[in-house]
């Protein structure tokens, strides 16, 4: 059965006042991840086809075509995992 671990390589809190969380997707799955997320979320803005500003339910986040994503405003890991599950599984 496919799980988040099949797509997510690492989750890391960034430093800076913004308290962002960066999700690093597995390199070999990055194209699949970018395609799935773009299909399931609403595109608000695209910068040079590399940065995608997206909305999904009540959340805004950024996806990078290099297979990384920045999320903001999550209370805990479970909340982030729940969103990622809806986007990817």
């Amino acid at each position, binding site marked *: 059965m496919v799980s988040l671990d099949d797509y997510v390589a690492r989750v890391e809190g960034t*430093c*800076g006042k*913004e308290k*962002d969380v*960066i999700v690093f997707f597995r390199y070999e799955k990055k194209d699949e991840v970018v395609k799935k997320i773009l299909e399931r979320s609403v595109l608000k803005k695209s*910068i*040079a086809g590399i*940065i995608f500003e997206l909305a999904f339910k009540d959340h805004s986040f950024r996806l990078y075509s*290099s297979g990384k994503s*920045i999320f903001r405003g999550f209370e805990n890991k479970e909340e982030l995992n729940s969103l990622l599950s809806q986007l990817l599984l």
Partner: protein
Amino acid sequence: MLDPYTIRKDFPILKRKINNHVLTYFDNAATSQKPIQVIGAMRDYYEHHNANVHRAVHTLSQEASELYEESHREVSKFINANGIEEVVFVRGTTEAINLVAYAWGLRALNKDDEVIVSLMEHHSNIIPWEIMSRLRGFRIRYVEVNADGTLNYKCFEELISKKTRIVCLSHVSNVTGIVNDVKRVSRLAHEHDALILVDGAQSVPHMQVDVKDLDADFMAFSGHKMLGPTGIGVLYGKKEILEKMEPFQGGGEMIREVSFDSRRKRCSITWNVLPWKFEAGTPNVGGAVGLMRAVEYLKDIGMIKVKSHEQMLTKYALNRMGDCCRSLEVYGTKDTSLKCGIIPFGLAGLSSHDIALYLDYYGIMIRSGFHCAQPLHELLKLNSSARASFYVYNTREEIDRFVEVLRELEEP
């Protein structure tokens, strides 16, 4: 002038591609890349000489001990110390500063004393003193930073007093690249009978540093930022101060003698001589060999050339960034005579992480965030910053590419 195109041939990692783009490495203030000479020296050590150092009679241990001591000698000459007694090997700058805080500060600092720390310090030169202040009850006085990121020397002069026991200051800011006038501050500290600890993490790899000329009592720096391996760093200390200090950690290597006194039912201990008194346990011999080779590599280039190359790149980058990017802001002074090869910047409407991830797509590695200097960011009213930092293998062509990508990013 230094020839970066020849130097680049020594760095295998620079041939790598990221996302099908040639790697451009501009995160040198965080760590540097390693030349084949350093990688080869470490490989040779592990393939032919590896053993534990000191107090063994066999051939391999003798060879390892000689290499380990030779590395101390090379580092000592590199910073113009008085010999290996003044060069303690540690894991890195952070451990070196903690060594001073615990081995010196824990005993020397009391309730009525004061420690002066600048607000441009890396967390590694703030937190050990905050921890020690909570243990010993002394007061930390923080020196302000001007709006352009330079140190407020007037504030410094106002804060220093007979209560001051030690002044803790970075030689070069890891955020702005600004070079502090350490000689001026050490003179002021010594006039007040205070010591000075210099964080040399961003200076020793990039310029000629002479601990005697600076009159530093302690200086801390890391091997991995100067082409050497991770896990090895240096605490320089004046011999007469290190001799008076008690050890930092206890164990093997740092003692000369331990004998059980059956009458008193406890051990009597004699510390080892300097620098081994501060190097408890089996040291990082392989790392020391790599550091020695890194020092030789930098000496072969010449530190004056290293500095002028980085200043040339900084000047070039600042001009190109200013010309090409309308919404780009460089933080801190742009006066390259006051700076090393570090440029902190931001682009309107984008977070530092956005900038770093965009550049990453093109194989350009920069750092984003606080760079372990949150107080300085707060003082400069920045949520975070993007930081490009240069070294001997960087070229003007790489800066051109970097600026092109930044321009693309700001053009929606």
